[in-house]
């Protein structure tokens, strides 16, 4: 039979290799917070074809009105996204007027968001509180639902650690995305992260459920073998649910869902994949590590007998 758990330290290492560079990138560049969190004005304007002004021209207009921090980004062919500090209504109208003059014809305003700086304050903090509360509730629920198996508490804790792993994967992805594609963390991003958290826990429970069931069938079996057996049994379901169905939805959303949804869909694609991956390669192996109390051997020189 497939021995997945025997290679558990390899999987841990793979996750670290993905997470650490991404987090370092985030650390260097800072979290790419959108105006949703730090305040500012975002204009998304569509120009007639062949009338797209250059970045410098737009920058000059902003500078001319005393707004020095405009960042201009081109998406699709004729759409500009311009981010800046908060613009008053009059300045915003001035800018649109000058842009219209530049293009020589009417522009289509796709989006104009202005967020005061005080709004974002505390959102992250509160979101963390909410997620922390949810995590606690889930540990309690899992401990209750698994009360029939020994050490039910461990299942909840391992599920939450694996969930944190999935969030870290998403954060690492954000680091890469911000670097390569100019991704920004906005409220839609927050939704994506919450989705990843929800689905991650759901998936862990399905895999743990099999361990719970096998526990009553194979009472004498060593825990590692039992867990490995359970993972292999649920493997087909994991692949089918995750790869064949959910990921198809997200892939089509990423490909056909338009620019607004692309970043959102890609984060979900990776995050939900990670949610399934970590059930098998992080959460269940952690249970084994805990059962064997392997940390006692981590810092000894004797070769591990696995």
């Amino acid at each position, binding site marked *: 039979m497939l021995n997945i758990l025997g290679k558990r330290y390899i999987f841990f290492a793979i996750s670290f290799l993905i997470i650490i560079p991404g987090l370092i990138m985030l650390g260097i560049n800072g979290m790419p917070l959108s105006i949703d969190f730090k305040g500012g004005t975002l204009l998304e304007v569509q120009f007639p074809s062949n009338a797209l002004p250059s970045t410098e021209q737009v920058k000059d207009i902003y500078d001319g009105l005393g707004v020095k921090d405009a960042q201009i980004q081109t998406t699709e062919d004729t759409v500009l996204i311009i981010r800046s500090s908060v613009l008053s209504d009059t300045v915003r109208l001035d800018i649109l007027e000058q842009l219209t003059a530049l293009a020589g014809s009417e522009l289509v305003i796709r989006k104009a968001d202005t967020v005061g700086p005080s709004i974002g304050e505390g959102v992250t903090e509160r979101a963390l509180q909410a997620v922390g509360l949810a995590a606690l*509730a889930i540990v309690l629920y899992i401990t209750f639902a698994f009360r029939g198996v020994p050490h039910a508490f461990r299942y909840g804790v391992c599920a939450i650690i694996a969930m944190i792993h999935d969030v870290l994967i998403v954060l690492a992805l954000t680091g890469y995305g911000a670097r390569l594609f100019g991704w920004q963390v906005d409220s839609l991003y927050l939704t994506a992260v919450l989705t990843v958290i929800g689905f991650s826990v759901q998936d862990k429970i399905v895999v743990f459920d099999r361990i719970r069931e096998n526990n009553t069938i194979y009472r004498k079996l060593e825990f590692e073998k039992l867990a490995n057996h359970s993972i292999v049994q649920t493997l087909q379901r994991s692949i089918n649910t995750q790869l064949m169905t959910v990921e*198809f939805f997200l892939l089509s959303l990423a490909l056909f869902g338009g620019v607004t949804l692309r970043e959102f869909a890609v984060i979900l694609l990776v995050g939900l994949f990670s949610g399934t991956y970590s059930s098998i390669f992080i959460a269940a192996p952690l249970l084994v590590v805990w059962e064997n109390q392997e940390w006692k051997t981590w810092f000894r020189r004797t070769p591990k007998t696995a």
Partner: protein
Amino acid sequence: MDRRYINFIFILVLVAAIIWIDLPRAEGAAGIKIGTFERTLNPVLGLDLRGGMQVLLAPPEGSDIDKQALEDAALTLENRANGLGVSEVVFQVAGEKYILGEFPGLTNTEEVIATVKQTGLLEFVDAGNTYLPDGTLITTDHGLTEPVINDPAIVPVVNSEGVVEPADYVFHTVMLGSEIENVSVEVDQVTGTFIIPFEVTADSTKMFREYTAANINKNLAIVLDKRVISCPTIQGALDGGGQISGNFTSETANNLAVTLRYGRLPVALEVVESRIIGPTLGEDSLSKSLLAGAIGFSIVILFMTIYYRLPGVVAVFSIAIYAGLTFALFKLIPVTLTLPSIAGFLLSTGSALDANILIFERLKEELRNGRTLQQAIDLGWKRAWPSIRDSNIATIITSIILFWFGSAFGASIVKGFALTLALGVGVSLFTAIVVTRNFLSIVIKLINPARHQKWFGA
């Protein structure tokens, strides 16, 4: 009769109801009405999908926040905006200190901000023998330097289109909103109807008493920003106060009282956030996410049928019922459809699929262990159930906490997402328990399963 068939009939009735509710309706077509429960059954699209403007208002930093004052301000703003003829405007209190205003289709920030900042001029106007219906726009002499003397021979009328004739008729303002105080809402002990008692400030008492004494049985219109909001008849001389009676419900009486109390807003508000979504972007997002959903769903149908054969087909029906039922609930509750709420819906579709896949994988396993098909279905179901139950309960717990977080903080994105996720997961549990299982059992009864093992992918 076999329980399965009773369930089957129940499912058929449900499907008929779902189809009836989900069918698209023409704008303004009749919806559903049972007692006080009334729905148009048109899907409610959020601003990100239909275009429009959203503003978030808050009292200036550091000011005291009085929840009741915020509620009143939201009501006043909504009345005011509706008075301006802007349709479907919603103002509501969001979180601890915000008022969220939504203006579908409108992208003119200036107009909205003017509405917010305007103080609101409340006047009591002499309408003589003319009854002025609610909403009539009139001209008054308040603020005019020259007094206007109307020819008593001219009696203004309001024509069928709600316009005053003659158009240049100027009504006389008797008293301003600033001259009344202590407005409340009470139920008349005798008639049981709602009444609105008010007091006139000491300075204006004499004037008001003389005026009302001279105009008994005439109409006294209450006018906000030149628009009539009520037109009661003077029933007697009023000394120091009076009451407005009319055909009020508890809600309309309260609305009027709030307007009388606060011709101006009870709290100062400033715009802390504004979002404008152009109609093209909204349409674009809607059509693209619908396309993406259709493509995704087609691939899922293909996969399920090819991989799981007959049970796969059953699952596709079950998922279709799941999607239809969820959409029907969205219309009935109603849930505003935004991009995040669609995301929550898609995610719960994933859960619904997962439930089916869990059951079928178990079914296959039991078949491999040499069970008969009927046994395999029962066992597969029984074994898959705990994992479906526990995993979905965990998701519901998460969404409840997120919903609470979203409401407390006015983060409507998170709230919408959590609501549709919880609803979807709830419905998916139902379809997994009732629909998939019943359909499978009935299919087994109708065919001879022993001869068709391969239909089950075994």
